[in-house]
């Protein structure tokens, strides 16, 4: 029994910070709490039924998927390319790696605010550079024009988080067995064949973890979009996290927001379990 007494403080902490908020959120989602009123009555599945009728919620989910489906492969490919470039020892490698990783240490909201300045149509350097290239002043409304707003957000997002992929994949590549690479070279295997048949299988677990972490991050995407567009124009770039924030902290729909949170938890749990199974790293 003694060993169980030793672990109970840790179990208690996990229950308090992990399970309790989830259970409490679940409970709130079945109530009728709105910060503007005192009502705490039981509302059954009312908020869950409302979720299915809420077009804006499903649009926000769609926007989140668009960001995830575009940013995740691009970050992966760019991160992998950079990692392959830096895997071999070269002069100044450590300095370059440190510089490349800098964007990930910046707070995303600060990164978003900085990109907002870069995209400024009047004083922003991006339009200025475009002006130099085209030979006439450019006033592209990056954060207003529906044609540019997604590329602008994706650019900021990919700029910030590709280095994270790079770092993980660099670590993965560094652990590829050099004797296998050497053997392949001796056997006359080309670069692509070596990559697909030796390197890629070797870094697959790292790749899977990197994809999972970034996929989850992208599903929770908030800061950069909030700083750049606040989900606009209209609700065109509103992600599920922004929608939940607006409902909870601007519209004060506490119980409805709890129902959204439960929906997100369920969706993410399904995705994570499926991904882990597929990647065979759950074991």
């Amino acid at each position, binding site marked *: 029994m003694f060993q169980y007494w030793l672990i109970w403080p840790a179990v208690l902490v996990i229950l308090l910070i992990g399970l309790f908020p989830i259970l409490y959120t679940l409970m709130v989602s079945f109530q009728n709490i709105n*910060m503007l009123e005192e009502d705490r009555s039981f509302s059954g599945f009312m908020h869950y039924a409302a979720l299915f009728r809420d077009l804006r919620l499903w649009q926000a989910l769609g926007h989140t998927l668009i960001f995830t489906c575009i940013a995740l492969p691009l970050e992966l490919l760019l991160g992998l390319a950079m990692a392959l470039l830096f895997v071999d020892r070269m002069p100044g490698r450590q300095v370059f790696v440190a510089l490349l990783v800098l964007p990930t240490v910046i707070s995303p909201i600060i990164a978003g605010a900085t990109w907002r300045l870069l995209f*400024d149509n009047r004083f922003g350097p991006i339009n200025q550079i475009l002006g130099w290239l085209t030979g006439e002043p450019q006033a592209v*409304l990056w954060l207003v024009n529906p044609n540019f707003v997604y590329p602008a957000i994706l650019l900021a997002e990919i700029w910030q988080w590709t280095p994270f992929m790079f770092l993980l994949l660099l670590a993965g590549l560094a652990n590829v067995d050099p004797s296998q690479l050497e053997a392949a070279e001796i056997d006359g295997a080309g670069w692509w064949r070596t990559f697909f048949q030796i390197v890629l299988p070797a870094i697959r677990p790292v790749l899977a973890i990197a994809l999972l972490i970034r996929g989850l991050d992208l599903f929770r995407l908030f800061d950069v979009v909030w700083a750049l567009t606040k989900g606009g124009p209209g*609700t*065109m770039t509103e992600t599920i996290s922004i929608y939940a924030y607006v409902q909870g902290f601007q*519209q004060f729909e506490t119980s409805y927001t709890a129902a959204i949170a439960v929906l997100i938890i369920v969706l993410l749990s399904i995705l994570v379990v499926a991904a882990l199974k597929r990647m065979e790293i759950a074991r």
Partner: protein
Amino acid sequence: MISRRAVNGGLAVLAALALAGPAFAQSAADKAVEAAKQYSGTTITIVWEAGLQSLDPLNFSGPKWKELTGIDVKVVEVPTAEMFTKILQEHRAGTGAYDALNVIPSWMSDLARAGALEPLDAYVDKYGYRDELQEIAPVYRDNQMKVGDTIYGFPDDGDVFVFYYRKDILEENGLKVPTTWAEFAETAQKLTDKYAPEMYGAAFFRDAPYAQFMFQERFRVEGGKFFDPETMKATVNSEAGVKAFTEMRAENKFMPPGVETWGFVENLAAFLAGDTAMTLSWPPYGRWAAGYGTDQEALNWVPKSTVAGKVGYALPPGGHPQLAAGFSLSVSASSKNKEAAYLFIQWLNSKDISLQRVQLPYALRDPFRASHFESAEYKSRWPEAPEYLSALQQGAVSGLLDLSLIQTDKYEEALRQGISRLWAGEDPKAILDDVAAQWDAVTEKVGVEEQKAAYADWAGKPNAYPSK
């Protein structure tokens, strides 16, 4: 014949009146200070808008109050967009962390309904503040102080949109100050055609949170009504709404490129730099354009005005400026120092102290009392100050109230989204149909009858819609 006893009695009454005289003449500020001395050594916490606004209690009123009463003032700075949330969250948590509050008047009914604001009538009577309250300009006093018949806040900021124009440029081109939106468009287009890109005919802040105030104003100037009072169906998508939206977008063509993203500062910088000939904004633009107080450290971010002495002040085209936002001073219902908090806001809002506060160049509080508009001291602050105060005073007569209902922000949120879609190029009618549908959904959720009563209360105020 008058008896000696009667004479003695009369003299005694006169003597008593003479002694009581100074007490009767005591100002509301003095009364507040005298009463507050019993709380010396305590601290009161006040929520104030972050940034320049809060320099008033930090640099001026807070230290002065401490000196007079011994009460410390702790200022909690909160960005405007978060003030409502913070106040409500604190109230729900019941921590008593805030004693006094700055409340945007259109939120007052929501906060009062939620029980977050302390009714002030009893305090007002106890500390003899009714007479001085009456001296607040009627548009603020009658519309931004009460919910139902109960006082929940003291109007403390004469926020109103003022039209600023370059007198020299209009004169040079033989143009009149536009009094209708059609004249405005014509004048601005002419100036843009002649001077752009060095100078554009006009610019406004177009960022949705600001532009929604402009829409509210123009929609009503065009004869629009927000709701059908019988059914509470939204009528924001009426012809007036579509006209206002269509014109607002068309105006962007004679404004500087990218004006769709401009906020308060971008628009200010352009006007002070002489890049635009006409604009519309809150009163501080007028003071800073004249260079009033801009040499102070707190205002070192304000671009140096290149247009001082050349700026005229007028009511916006249509003649009914939006009384956009504004602030009232309230006491938190969960405060543990309600009496001291009340005395502080009475003192701040009093005739004597508020006159000093509205003249602080950095604090953004704008004149809101008859005595402010007529103050000889204020009129002497810069050569055009009398003209400036006159424009503010006119605005305080014909100004239009922000829409205020139950859960107002949900209606404003739909409008803000609509405006950002407008700048993105969507069809004005389609956008407004969506906005109206969202408004109807909010009304349904709040309760049609309940909202109908709230709207009737708001629409019944003299400055809800332009007088015919």
